[in-house]
């Protein structure tokens, strides 16, 4: 709409600008939507995340809290004004940007600090960055980068054959530190329709619409409801369980569920008061089944049974038993879901943040009644995902609007909408009994877990399936019975969140292990070493493993463990109300789908003019697959990384690399990339008749291969191109060899497992119940470390999420739908982290490599809880360990 706004003159990045806009408009909106400076990110619109930090006359402020009128006549600096500064280069060199969504805010806050304090200390950096939240990195590399801004180039890209194992800066990092990366909310084509959802205020709720045509006509907007959906109004990540409507029909099963869409001119849609939308709500019956077809609200149960666990427990010398309760945990990525959809001919194109482009394509096609090839997914950068962006959010909604109107459609969820309508970590109520013989060897283990999967199935079946497989931990457990159940409730959908229920189960198992070790009179680390699974031993699923790295991880902690125990003892000897403690916990985690196919296909080719391209369909949500998979591929071909150009992900251009989930991309897509690289190399060697050890070089249109017998050249332009435009090409598919589980959960559910163990040192204030984690030592077996820089970033980030889960994170529906009531760790909450990488090669993984992404979160929370118990005797049985719960648990222990 063209309204007669005042015009405000200000300076932006040194240039005078004049903006006609409402005086009270958020500066973040003005910068992004009026001036096209999308480098300033919006994560919460409440000053809670700091992603929108800009400088006003040099001082950092949240642009989302600054009315335009207040910057009139002043100088605003955004990330676009930094221009390849030493700070930005340090961010790249140090691996400080993962998903990159917080990077502009971090850069601006750090810029302000460095201007006043050119050589800050760590504490000053942490304080200056304390107002910017990051969910990926655990802050360690960000703080290091700000402490290391001496000008100078990084080491550059490694030579041919030397990519694997090198600390390669992320290949897609440039746009992240420049602020030019395009996330879900950063594209705004001309003439688009803005889309907003009318959402259920509570659940269960029945609803009926009033005169929506009159509402639409009155406001000059379009309204869409479930009646407009042309296909099957039920989506879900696992097709057999697809049950979630894109728009609810007659009744909503959870608060925040979309029931109708309004779409129209952005200014009109923005100004609409959706409270006036003609819908009548009527409280539903919360005793009624959530889904009629699922008795007892049971979505699914899981079982793994091996030997006679009850008999083993009856015969055990030492038995420990306990229960554990964990809450909803929010992914809290800094980028709320957003995207755009438009039509290209009869193809619907969707550009939104996602972790699973091909799954999105197929699900959207089903909902919208299209053939899958008529839907193209071009993922935007994802500003964090951690599992939640595997599920659809805005995609079917904007797809519907674009399909029905033929016009581009855009939707950006607010922080509250994102939190109330997208998936969470499953709340768990678990109990277990573990028995050991007189020597401390595990004899039997019984586990039961109830997982609240919320209103819809999402990944509930995966959680119920993974938990019994993993609940033993990476320990030899000869007799085992683990039962799980995922049940529905009228609460938020629980889905995938880094670990699929395994972190919850590990909290119970690893805390019980401490009790058992104490009962057996064995040092807690020794107890774990004694029971660690070894090569050639069978898992609880009867799968005999090779390349088992848990012992190596635990061995690596022996020195740090003794030192930490001595430190704690010395500090405690001084007395006072601060008690120090040390805890340890392990993890294992199977990479890829549980006993189901999950192939990745990688295509690569060389064009007539000598461009080497890798079609890389794995979405990089910050974890680094763009870089790691390129490293594996480049070395397999034998050409330097600098020659490589990445294509995709884009369902029109890249073969399916599956979802970024289950810690599978380095392993599964990495293996496909290895095979594709090897195939391409083999073809080159054959054409040039050179040997295995030939050195390749690519110079313009000439490809040379040199071995001991001399050098051969191929003039690429003389060769015919294939349908993809390549004169030399390879495409390889890899699917992990697994054996489905039988009725007792026996089989070979994963082809590759990763292992790890972490040690936490804590200081507990015994009168206030506050816990400070002072240090974490993390030993992880990666089989083969492809990129130590990025792998460290995964460890540090996983620890931050594990620490949050242990100490502060609890999502309460309807109450914590923001980032000031829902707390995640800040710079000041993170301990010093020492990462130790162990390489026990896996026979199946590419170059021996194993997955890492989810493993890193699993041991953190139990290690912290074990350290709290070591320090104070307090046994925490309900997370998070907020100060009042710690104090209560201490009182209980000291009774």
């Amino acid at each position, binding site marked *: 709409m063209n*309204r007669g706004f005042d015009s405000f003159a200000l300076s932006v990045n040194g240039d005078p600008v004049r903006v006609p806009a*409402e*005086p*009270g*408009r*958020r500066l973040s*909106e003005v910068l992004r939507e009026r001036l096209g400076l999308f480098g300033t990110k919006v994560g919460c*619109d*409440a*000053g*809670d995340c*700091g992603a929108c*930090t800009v400088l*006003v006359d040099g*001082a*950092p*402020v*949240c642009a*989302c*809290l*600054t*009315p335009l*009128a*207040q910057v009139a006549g002043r100088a605003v600096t955004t990330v676009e004004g930094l221009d390849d500064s030493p700070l930005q280069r340090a961010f790249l060199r140090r691996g400080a940007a993962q998903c990159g969504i917080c990077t502009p805010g971090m850069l601006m*806050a750090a810029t*302000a600090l460095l201007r006043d304090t050119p050589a800050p200390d760590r504490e000053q950096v942490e*304080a*200056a960055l*304390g*107002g*910017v*939240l990051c969910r990926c990195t655990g802050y360690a590399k960000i703080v290091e980068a700000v402490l290391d801004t001496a000008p100078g180039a990084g080491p550059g890209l490694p030579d041919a054959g030397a990519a694997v194992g090198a600390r390669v800066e992320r290949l897609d990092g440039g746009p992240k530190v420049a602020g030019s990366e395009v996330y879900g909310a950063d594209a705004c084509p001309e003439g688009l329709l803005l889309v907003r959802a009318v959402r259920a205020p509570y659940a269960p709720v029945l609803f009926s619409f009033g005169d929506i045509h009159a509402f639409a006509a009155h406001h000059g907007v379009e309204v869409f409801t479930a009646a407009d959906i042309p296909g099957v109004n039920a989506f879900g990540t696992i097709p057999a369980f697809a049950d979630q409507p894109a728009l609810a029909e007659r009744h909503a099963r959870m608060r925040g569920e979309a029931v109708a869409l309004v779409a129209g001119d952005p200014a009109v849609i*923005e100004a609409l008061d959706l409270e006036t939308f003609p819908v009548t709500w009527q409280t539903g019956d919360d005793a009624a089944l959530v889904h009629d077809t699922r008795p007892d609200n049971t979505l699914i149960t899981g079982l793994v049974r091996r030997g006679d666990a009850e008999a083993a427990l009856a015969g055990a010398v030492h038995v420990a038993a306990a229960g554990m309760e964990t809450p909803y945990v929010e992914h809290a990525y800094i980028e709320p879901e957003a995207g755009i959809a438009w039509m290209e001919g009869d193809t619907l194109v969707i550009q939104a943040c996602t972790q699973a482009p091909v799954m999105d394509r197929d699900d959207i096609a089903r909902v919208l009644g299209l053939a899958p090839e008529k839907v193209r997914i071009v993922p935007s950068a994802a500003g964090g995902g951690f599992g939640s962006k595997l599920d659809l959010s805005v995609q079917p909604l904007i797809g519907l609007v674009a399909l029905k109107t033929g016009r581009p459609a855009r939707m950006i969820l*607010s922080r*509250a909408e994102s939190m109330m309508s997208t998936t969470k970590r499953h709340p768990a109520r678990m109990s277990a009994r573990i028995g050991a013989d007189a020597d401390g060897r595990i004899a039997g283990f019984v586990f039961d877990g109830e997982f609240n999967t919320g209103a819809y199935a999402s990944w509930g079946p995966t959680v119920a399936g993974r938990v019994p497989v993993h609940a033993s931990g990476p320990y030899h457990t000869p007799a085992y019975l683990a039962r799980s159940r995922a049940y529905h409730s009228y609460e938020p959908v629980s889905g995938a969140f880094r670990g699929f229920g395994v972190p919850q189960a590990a909290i119970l198992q690893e805390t019980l292990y401490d009790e058992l070790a104490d009962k057996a009179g064995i040092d807690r680390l020794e107890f774990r070493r004694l029971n660690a699974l070894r090569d050639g031993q069978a898992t609880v699923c009867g799968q005999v493993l090779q390349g088992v790295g848990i012992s190596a991880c635990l061995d690596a902690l022996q020195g740090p463990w003794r030192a930490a125990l001595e430190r704690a003892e010395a500090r405690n000897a001084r007395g006072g109300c601060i008690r120090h403690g040390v805890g340890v916990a392990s993890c294992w985690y199977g990479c890829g789908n549980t006993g189901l196919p999950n192939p990745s296909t990688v295509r690569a080719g060389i064009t007539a003019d000598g461009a080497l391209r890798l079609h890389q369909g794995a979405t990089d949500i910050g974890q680094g697959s763009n870089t790691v998979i390129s490293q594996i591929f480049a070395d397999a071909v034998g050409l330097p990384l600098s020659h490589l150009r990445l294509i995709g992900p884009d369902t029109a251009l890249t073969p399916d690399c599956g979802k970024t989930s289950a810690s599978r991309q380095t392993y599964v897509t990495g293996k496909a990339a290895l095979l594709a690289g090897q195939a391409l190399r083999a073809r080159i060697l054959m054409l040039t008749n050179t040997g295995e050890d030939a050195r390749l070089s690519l110079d313009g249109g000439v490809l040379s291969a040199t071995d001991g017998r001399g050098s051969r050249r191929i003039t690429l332009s003389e060769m015919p191109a294939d349908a993809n435009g390549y004169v030399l090409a390879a495409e390889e598919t890899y699917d992990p060899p697994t054996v489905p589980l039988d009725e007792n959960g026996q089989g070979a559910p994963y082809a590759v497992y990763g292992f790890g163990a972490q040690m936490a040192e804590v200081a507990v204030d015994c*009168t*206030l*119940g*506050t816990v400070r984690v002072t240090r974490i030592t993390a030993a992880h077996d990666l089989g083969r470390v492809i990129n130590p820089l990025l792998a460290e970033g995964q460890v540090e980030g996983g620890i931050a999420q594990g620490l949050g889960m242990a*100490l*502060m994170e*609890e999502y*309460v529906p309807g*109450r*914590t739908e923001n980032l*000031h*009531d829902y*707390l995640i*760790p*800040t*710079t*000041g*909450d993170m301990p010093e982290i020492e990462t130790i990488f162990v390489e026990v090669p896996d026979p199946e993984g590419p170059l021996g490599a194993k997955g890492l992404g989810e493993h890193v979160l699993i041991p953190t929370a139990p290690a912290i809880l074990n350290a709290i118990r070591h320090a104070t005797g307090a046994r925490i049985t309900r997370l998070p360990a*907020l*100060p*009042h719960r710690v*104090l*209560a648990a201490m009182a209980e222990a000291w009774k």
Partner: protein
Amino acid sequence: MAAYHRPETLEAALDLLAAAPVTIAAGCTDLFAATPARALPGEVLDITGIAELRGIGRTDTGLRIGAAMTWSDVVRADLPPAFDMLKQAAREVGSVQIQNAGTMAGNICNASPAADGMPCLLALDAEVELASSAGRRRMPLADFVTGPRKTALGKGEMVIAVHVPDAATRGQSRFEKLGARKYLVISIAMVAARLELDGETVERASIAVGSCGPVAVRLGALEVALTGAPLAGLGARVTPELVARHLSPIDDIRADGGYRAQAATELVRRVLDSLAGGCEAAA
């Protein structure tokens, strides 16, 4: 579209206030956080352009902090040690970004039970100066904030300054905030204390607790009990009867009420011991 006013004089602002109901805006850190809208909704009176509302300085009777002064302005101001607690609180308001925009007077007017500035200003015997087109008045801060999100602000009235009387600008002070994380945190409990000393003896104690009731409160009984007490062992004189009994904490997502009362007592003890230790070291 609703109007957005950003007058340059107090007189103009008061005329606008008298004419129609408006939302008074300064740092906007609470206003924007309370709305999902892209722009501040309703008619807005932005007071940040008014020169008279700026400045931190001495008056005939004490110290005046203008209503448009941000938390960062407070941190930068040259103030006596009695204000150390206020500066400590200022550094814990949200983040640096929030401190650069949010104002101290706004923190008071927002009337959150967890307002970081309140315990300190109560322990400084602060008064608020109110103005309307009908005139000016002053009232004790303790009377101004009447409940959660409630103040004694009259129709057409605005806060133009906070005053600290000369008598309260003496002594040493300290602030402690307890939260579930380090930065960007809403407190579970917080304590501000100011001690005026006569040698090694407490001449006067001013102690306030926040986040443990609808409004932050002074601990009158404890202050009386500490008057004349020696610095040594000050914290040991703090009993639950003197602290917890005077609070009305609630259970919420951050903590339960019983814990809050217990934690407040402990925080008071620690603040006093830390002040006593600091004073002894300085003596």
